[in-house]
């Protein structure tokens, strides 16, 4: 089998929280040697948990996404068991160094010398305050690629603003566009698609810079703003304003050009999503539902009528769905050619015939978390299939390899750096 596309490239992951750790994981999946650079002296809030050592009681009250450690137990090293971190850690190597000390910067400069790209999404100015800037990096390695992902970009009046994905979504208008039609946005569940898309953008921008470097030998300082990337993902809504001066309101689950919605099914909290985009699909829905009378109802005669009278149509559709299992009703509609799909909860997703048939979930054995199925790859590649080569990386897991084999430190130097607080697999005692 041919080598993975990015084999032979070495990439440093200085990322925190979600976006850059996710983006560098995509690069690692494609074969790059990605080294997570972490510190045992500072706890990265929300990257490896809310706290390094949360109590068992504290995590019980958190939603599963934040408190869902294996068996709801923090374990000895909870920071290696945090579900979020373990979704961005596969296929990476991990090392620790304290970049606040000059000796730490010396270690980093040795790493930079043998690396191709560095990705960062620390709060604006964080790396600069430690002296880590593009001029510093490119003096060490002239063709280095330095990708900085931030909320608002490296320049402009908000360059120093603090924002997480939540705030980026809010700023881009997404909260106003996804609220319930009859409720204000304070009823929105938090969501961070801008964060996720930011990670994909940082990785894509890194790919473009790698291609440019391969062709010209030039490195560069890449500036990715999560806001600017996300606006491109709602371009049609933004252009309705720039073309027509229209400020679009949230449609809830509806669509301007089709009848669609989420309808209750049999059982507790079971739902099916249905879209009826054409007259043909409407006829087929009527056939599947066994309600020929709907066809002669003047309120639903044309697509425009159905969209206009959706408030009257929805209860009829729901009457049809509510006695049926969510997957069965979706399968029934699909057999008739009507677009439909069950609203999957976590248990449903693991049982989903499509995800199972395609081998989406991957069993991974992790030294601190145990063996579980993990959500897998966002793509399938025919010549160089990607998968989980190594489990989600633990704090400082590959210090020996990085310091001794890659950087050439002697055993004695290694012990000195360990004593200085650079090297470890646990957070320093002052971190709770």
């Amino acid at each position, binding site marked *: 089998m041919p080598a993975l596309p990015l084999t032979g490239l070495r990439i440093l992951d200085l990322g925190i929280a979600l976006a850059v750790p996710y983006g560098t994981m995509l690069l690692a999946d494609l074969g790059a040697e990605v080294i997570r650079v972490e510190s045992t002296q500072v706890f990265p809030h929300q990257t490896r948990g809310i706290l390094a050592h949360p109590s068992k009681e504290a995590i019980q009250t958190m939603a599963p996404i934040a408190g869902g450690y294996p*068996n709801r137990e923090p374990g000895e090293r909870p920071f290696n068991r945090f579900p979020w971190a373990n979704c961005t850690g596969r296929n990476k190597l991990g090392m620790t160094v304290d970049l606040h000390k000059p000796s730490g910067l010396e270690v980093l400069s040795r790493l930079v010398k043998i690396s191709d790209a560095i990705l960062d999404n620390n709060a604006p100015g964080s790396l600069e305050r430690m002296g880590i800037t593009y001029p510093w990096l490119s003096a060490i390695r002239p063709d280095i690629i330095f990708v900085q992902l931030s909320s608002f970009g490296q320049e402009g009046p908000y360059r120093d603003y603090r924002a997480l994905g939540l705030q980026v*979504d809010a*700023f881009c208008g997404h909260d106003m566009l996804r609220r319930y039609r009859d409720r204000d946005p304070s009823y929105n569940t938090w*969501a961070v698609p801008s964060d996720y898309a930011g990670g994909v953008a940082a990785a894509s921008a890194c790919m473009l810079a790698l291609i440019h470097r391969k062709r010209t030998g030039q490195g560069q*300082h890449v500036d990715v703003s999560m806001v600017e990337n996300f606006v491109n*993902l709602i371009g049609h809504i933004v252009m309705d304003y720039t073309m027509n001066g229209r400020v679009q309101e949230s449609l809830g689950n509806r669509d301007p050009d089709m009848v669609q919605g989420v309808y209750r099914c049999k059982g507790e909290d079971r739902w099916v999503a249905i879209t009826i*985009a054409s007259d043909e699909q409407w006829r087929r829905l009527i056939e599947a539902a066994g309600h020929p009378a709907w066809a002669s109802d003047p309120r639903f005669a044309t697509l425009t009528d159905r969209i206009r009278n959706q408030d009257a149509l929805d209860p009829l559709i729901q009457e049809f769905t509510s006695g049926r299992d969510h997957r069965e009703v979706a399968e029934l509609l699909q057999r008739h050619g009507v677009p439909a799909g069950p609203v999957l909860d976590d248990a449903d997703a693991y049982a989903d015939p499509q995800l199972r048939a395609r081998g989406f979930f991957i069993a991974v054995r992790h030294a601190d978390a145990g063996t579980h199925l993990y959500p897998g790859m966002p793509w399938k590649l025919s010549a160089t299939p990607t998968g989980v080569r190594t489990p989600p990386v633990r704090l400082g897991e590959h210090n020996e390899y990085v310091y001794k084999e890659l950087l050439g430190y002697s055993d004695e130097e290694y012990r000195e750096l360990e004593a200085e607080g650079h090297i470890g697999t646990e957070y320093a005692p002052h971190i709770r």
Partner: protein
Amino acid sequence: MPSQPLEGVRVLDLTRHVAGPLCTKLLADYGADVIKIEQPRRGDPARWIAPFLHDLPHPERSGLFLHLNTNKRGITLDLKSDTGRSLFLRLLPSADIVVENFRPRVMPSLGLDYETLRTGKPALVMTSISNFGQTGPYRDWSASDLILYAMGHEMWGTGQPDSEPAGMANKLSLHIAGEMAYMATLGAFYGAAFQGVGQHVDISIMEVLASSIDRRAPSLLAYQYCGERAERVPSVHGIDAPPFVNYCADGFFEITVGLNWWADFVRAIGEEWIKDPIFRPPVREVAVRERFDAYWIPWCMARTKKEIVAIFQQAGIPCAPLNTTEDLVRDPQLKERGFFIDIEHPAAGRLTYPGAPFRLPQSPFAIRRPAPLLGQHNREILAEIGCDAKDLAVLSAAGVI
């Protein structure tokens, strides 16, 4: 003058609607020569999707289409006809990448499956984007943005427990899948260009969403770890103080405080009441949250979004206004960075578009041309494979172009 990173890379683009066109737009915006191939007469269905300039439906004036097809050249070709197919195969040797988002059975039924296309061109990258992937029992299912979100993402856990599960902004899931397809295509292209390994990239929109770090993947993993599902929980009446979304004098703002920024938050407010240690997170009693609200809500209602964001940003706390699209387009940050760009289009005129999603100073984003008119480049592109004016007339009369 810096060169664009994908200069000289040719893409045959068979995509339509949203996800595929976003993927090829991003290739074109960074320099690739993207040839968009549309069906004769009707063209890409996105040409017929709102918003339209002045709300008048017109195939050259859809904001969705205009945005997703910048920098592409366009030809029409009926791939169902033998002549159309053979013209496509004559263009193929010049291509590095083919991107398509038909239903999975279409390309093989046209005799254009990857194995056939790569004959004589082993380094070809072909990206196929589909709802559920090229294989599996749901391969041929129909779907929409909403259905894909329901099946692939966190919909079940999004919204209020007393209401239906809620989706994201209209067509967002399709755009997100398009950007991931872009990333995968660049990765495969790197292997093809520099190691000679071509391949077929199979993108299932459902899987892109199910592996998303916007809650879905971590929720799925947490379910494996502790057996609990990501449920819909009441957001506004929870006991976290302050909540994420808050009212103020002229709208809403979003803030994250928690324990991490609590000391900064207390300093930023600076009033006596907030210094009461009972408010320090985590708050466990509704009565405490109510006491907090009695001070907090009037504090917010006395200030505008802008004032509040300035106060908390000064203190280093993540905080932003809940903008409308109007606020966004008029925002000084995006203005100063020159993010929005004006593009002149022969049928739609001069309009303002979102600009570069990422900035590479040595190999930048650039607008070289607006979205193509239907069949605009038939003559110049088919001339490359030896079709002259007479041939074009014949092809046109036969409905092939």
